[in-house]
């Protein structure tokens, strides 16, 4: 039986708790669809090779580099972009700790750090370093970013609650 060619497909993506119908090429990366179809430009194209982390979004709460994921793979999964975070502890901590400079890598860092404090509320220095190594910043020295993560972890522990 001949399998028909399907140049474009219509898919439903759950982005920031909102169901969005999009028509995409199956070879479109999630990054491209978020930015160019949905207009969510918070996830940044950097290396587009899975190295720099500036395009990081959350898939079912886990950080994922959207440049190395096809949009069609994200069907039936919960996608969270930087636009979906509002007044979260990690965003406030980035401001308080001056954990950014030019800002280009910041959305990716925030998504990664948000997942880190949720998934590993007991993260030690080794775990924090391991997670931060997924993202590249060429302005700051990472210390302020690490301080932001630690301030959220510390506050969560003292409050006895975690942010989900």
């Amino acid at each position, binding site marked *: *039986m*001949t*399998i028909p*060619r*399907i*140049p474009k*497909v219509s898919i439903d993506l759950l982005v920031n708790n909102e169901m969005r119908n999009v028509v995409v*090429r*199956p*070879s*479109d*990366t999630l990054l*491209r669809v978020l930015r160019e179809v949905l207009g969510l430009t918070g996830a940044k194209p950097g290396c*587009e*090779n*899975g190295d720099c*982390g500036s395009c*990081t979004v959350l*898939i079912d709460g*886990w*950080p*994922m*580099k959207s*440049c*190395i*994921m*096809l949009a*069609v*793979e994200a069907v039936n999964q919960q996608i969270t972009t930087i636009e979906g975070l509002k007044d979260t502890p990690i965003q406030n901590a980035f401001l308080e700790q001056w954990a950014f400079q030019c800002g280009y890598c910041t959305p990716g860092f925030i998504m*990664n750090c948000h997942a880190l404090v949720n998934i590993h509320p007991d993260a030690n220095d080794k775990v924090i*370093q*391991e*997670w931060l*190594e*997924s*993202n590249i910043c060429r302005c700051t020295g990472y210390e302020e970013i690490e301080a932001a993560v630690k301030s959220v972890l510390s506050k969560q522990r003292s409050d006895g609650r975690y942010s989900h």
Partner: protein
Amino acid sequence: MIPFDFEYYKATSIPEAIYLFQNLFLQGRNPLYYGGGTEIITLARTNRIYTEAVIDIKGIPECNVFAHHDHKLLVGSAVTLTRVSEERLFPLLSRTCSEAADQTARNKITVGGNICGRIIFREAVLSFLLADSDILIAGPSGINKKPIHEIFKQRMRLQRGEFVVQVHTDTDYTKLPFIAVKKRRIGSVGYPVVTIAAMKKEQLVRVAFSGVCAFPFRSHQIETILNDRLTPLETRIERAVRHLPAPLLSNTDASAEYRAFVLKNTLLDVLTALEEV
């Protein structure tokens, strides 16, 4: 952006994946099985790979198994490196997987993708080489289990239409003493200058390498030399390095000469530690 179009099919069973592959192949669409997809996307973006259809195997239940069963550890090919690292059912495998790529990338990279990929380092395979694992392969001729030493020779030798479903490892091997060391040029993310994974079974040391030559390998000849305890350790290492299966890799991370230096020192550390176990 990927500069060409392809179709995407998500298989939910092994027969469906094989059926799709055969039909798409007969239609000249050069199909590829798709696991984590990180390598396919990065190669496609730069036109180093071409396909008109990918068949995602992440929806196949057998490819997502990660558990002990009947005295075997079953690792599905779609299991992510993060899951392997965190669940620690095979501590050596967890260790080598936790050193591949970076934390976020490991959420996407799968065991099957790592061992079948084009990337020359493929560190997930080292543990399976040491543990004499078996590879469960599905293809047009059915589902077959083959010893890893038969199917992995410098790279996975799969026939057209075949894909890896699972890797089976005797549970005993997952409990043996081990060491895994990855030496990079700089930092703690990136490709290795030398990676050595080693385990000790019945007083004999098994050693597998990545980053040393242009492919990962385990050499019985090298192990025989390294286990000759009547010879001083440094002499054994000098002899072993003369029996590498291919020239030492020389690239921007390290020249062949520097690699040899790092290899000898790392072997010394690994063997000293394991011989004391």
